[in-house]
């Protein structure tokens, strides 16, 4: 039956097929999304928001407004380039804020925060807090404060307060790059002896590269072996890779401590077979060597398993074909086999690298002071120096680095293709 208009196909209940189909597909999408929603919300609240909170802390400077409410307002009228001290009103605000802060014992926190930028501030705030209780301002708050400590008459002190009076501050990121703001507002690198983070980042990256390289060198042969023997044999041999993989990280690290110590197993063996003298024992721990050896061992399975799964997909007939066409074993390997495994090397390498740069436990236990990585310093700032702003800044930088690598990993391998052996 040919009509002038096209016939609309309908389903059994009279609804046009297109609409029905759209509705059914939308239902399916909804169900799929509903299934994922609980986990998504869970990860959002317990993980993503905390990470975001940390990012905020790396620039958060609300402590200035909390502890110095009056000063923050008054100092807006003062110019950073000015060569004179702020006016009496600002000093009066300083006295008032200190009186409140000293009574509540909270003002020293601001002193500690400012001390990260300029040493001596912590002491200044502490001393002022102790003396402010007895202070009776008769005429000039400025004179009274300078009498308590000369530093209140130092223009650098006031420049610092002005710079750090906003709600946000970039000083933590500056510190993370070993830079600081000068009195006149320009940036410069910190003095040699205070520079530590840039070199620490370099050390972390350098060591991670070394470890990744070592895992490739060590992992490639055994992945090749595992992929070319009979399945039954490979199932047995792979236990030698999986057992370390499944063993607790601390167990493996403590066994390396036992092995690498000066009075440890390896040194004992070397002395026992006469390779080195008893007073020439190798120092393989509490330095970079310890970190490298232990971390290579721990991360090796992460290289072997992806390589293995890639190598298994390479048909052995390819190499045989190359040989049959006259290639030497070496040429066949380099020009036929190796290129096909590059994806595996890339996958394993990036994975190992990402894991290595974030490691904390192993360097903390076997690295001494020379083999510690950036994560150890982040931990130090969280639990010991309590410079949470700097910890957050360092953490954010590390996170961005990892994200960049992760995007690279996605391009090379694809997240959806990640297998865990």
């Amino acid at each position: 039956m040919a009509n002038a208009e096209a016939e609309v196909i309908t389903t059994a209940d009279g609804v046009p097929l297109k609409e029905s189909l759209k509705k059914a597909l939308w239902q399916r999408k909804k169900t799929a999304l509903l299934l994922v929603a609980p986990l998504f919300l869970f990860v959002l609240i317990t993980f993503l928001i905390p990470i975001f909170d940390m990012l905020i802390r790396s620039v958060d400077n609300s402590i200035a407004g909390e502890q110095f409410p009056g000063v923050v307002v008054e100092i807006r009228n003062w110019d950073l380039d000015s060569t004179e001290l702020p006016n009496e009103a600002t000093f009066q605000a300083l006295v008032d804020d200190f009186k409140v802060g000293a009574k509540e014992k909270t003002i020293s926190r601001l002193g500690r925060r400012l001390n990260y930028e300029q040493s001596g501030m912590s002491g200044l705030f502490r001393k002022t807090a102790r003396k402010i209780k007895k202070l009776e301002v008769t005429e000039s708050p400025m004179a009274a404060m300078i009498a308590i400590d000369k530093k209140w008459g130092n223009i650098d002190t006031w420049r610092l307060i002005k710079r750090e009076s906003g709600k946000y501050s970039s000083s933590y990121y500056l510190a993370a790059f070993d830079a600081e703001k000068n009195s006149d507002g320009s940036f410069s690198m910190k003095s040699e002896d205070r520079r530590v983070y840039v070199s620490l980042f370099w050390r972390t990256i350098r060591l991670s590269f070394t470890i990744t390289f070592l895992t490739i060198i060590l992992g490639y042969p055994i992945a090749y072996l595992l992929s070319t023997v009979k399945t039954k044999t490979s199932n047995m041999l792979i236990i030698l890779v999986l057992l370390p993989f499944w063993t607790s990280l601390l167990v493996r690290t403590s066994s390396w401590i036992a092995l690498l110590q000066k009075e440890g197993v390896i040194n004992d063996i070397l002395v026992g077979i006469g390779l080195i003298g008893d007073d020439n024992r190798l120092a393989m721990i509490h330095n970079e060597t310890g970190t490298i050896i232990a971390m290579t061992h721990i991360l090796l399975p992460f290289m072997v398993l992806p390589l293995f799964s890639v190598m298994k997909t390479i048909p052995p007939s390819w190499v045989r074909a190359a040989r049959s066409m006259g290639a030497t074993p070496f040429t066949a390997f380099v020009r036929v086999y190796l290129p096909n495994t590059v994806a595996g090397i890339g996958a394993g390498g990036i994975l190992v690298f990402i894991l290595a740069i974030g490691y904390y436990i192993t360097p903390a236990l076997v690295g001494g002071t020379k083999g510690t990585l950036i994560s150890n310093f982040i931990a130090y700032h969280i639990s010991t120096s309590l410079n949470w702003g700097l910890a957050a800044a360092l953490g954010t930088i590390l996170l961005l680095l990892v994200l960049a690598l992760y995007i690279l990993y996605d391009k090379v391998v694809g997240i959806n293709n990640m297998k865990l052996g």
Partner: protein
Amino acid sequence: MKVILKQTLLATAALGLVATAQADITMVVVSWGGAYTKSQQRAYHEPYMANNPGVTIVNDDSASEGASKLRAQVEAGNVTWDLLDAEAPNAITLCDEGLVEEIDFDKDLAPAPDGTPASVDFGKSLISDCFIPQIAYSTTLGYRSDIYDVAPTKMADVFDLEKFPGKRSLEKRPDPNLEWALIADGVDPKDVYKVLDTKEGVDRAFAKLDTIKDQVIWWTKGSQPMQLLADGEVAFGSAYNGRLFEAIEVNKQPIKMLWDGQALQLDGWVVPKGAPNKAEVMKYLRFATDTQRLADQAKFISYGPLRASSAPMVGKHADLGIEMASHMPTAPENMKGAIFYDFEWWADNKDDLAERFESWLAK
């Protein structure tokens, strides 16, 4: 499925039971571990628990990070410590920051047996409103007695790598290493803090430390240097004098100690604000800091009690029977060459120098 459900319910119930079973009081006392905590256990905790059966005292050995951990707990809003054993500079800092309770010494602490109020009995050791003094101790140097033909005689010898080669062990913090560096570099002990107060002075101290840096293994817990000396990993090292006493006299190890350059420090208790069992803690403190108790701890370790009334009661070691008086850091014969810690100065400059020290270590 059913089995799993039942197990889950049982586990949840068990968890609930565990949480409510704490009718008795558990006090968490944070101290320094090793021989020191053992002495506190024997002199204070055990007698107290014997007299108060419902109370259990648990030892946490993290006092070496006590200040920062307490700060973190208060910032996080969850204080789990009842009592903290702190050194004087940390006590001053914590008090200034309002993290520990202020103490009314005459009301909260016991008077001496002859009626002298506590504030007089403790005298000059009351360096802060929040600090309850306990003992005087010093950080000093020990060395293996079987390694050097000519034994070291003064503190400056630890910087002498030629005459006294071998690895050293120093405490992983700026003090008293910076003071020692300056004195070894020729500064008069009376002027040490004046010099340290300048940038050049600090640079000078770090430069001196640089000369031995490669040979140093850094320790964080009081038992570590003793372990290193006993194992022979180091030939020379700093340690708390009480731990050295324990190693030499009790464990009979081939170690000797130097009193020259000993850095005298005060150690005592602070009560964290928001401690879970404050009432019980105050009761405990009244007992643990009275004259007899402070004299008792000297029976187990060579630290000097800070109460004037306790000093004459110091007698013999509980197990070894030797006279403790001559092993006290405050004994006149040991005081030559001692360094008096400037608590106020360290309270003000600790954080700064700690960070500088940490950066220096990482290079």
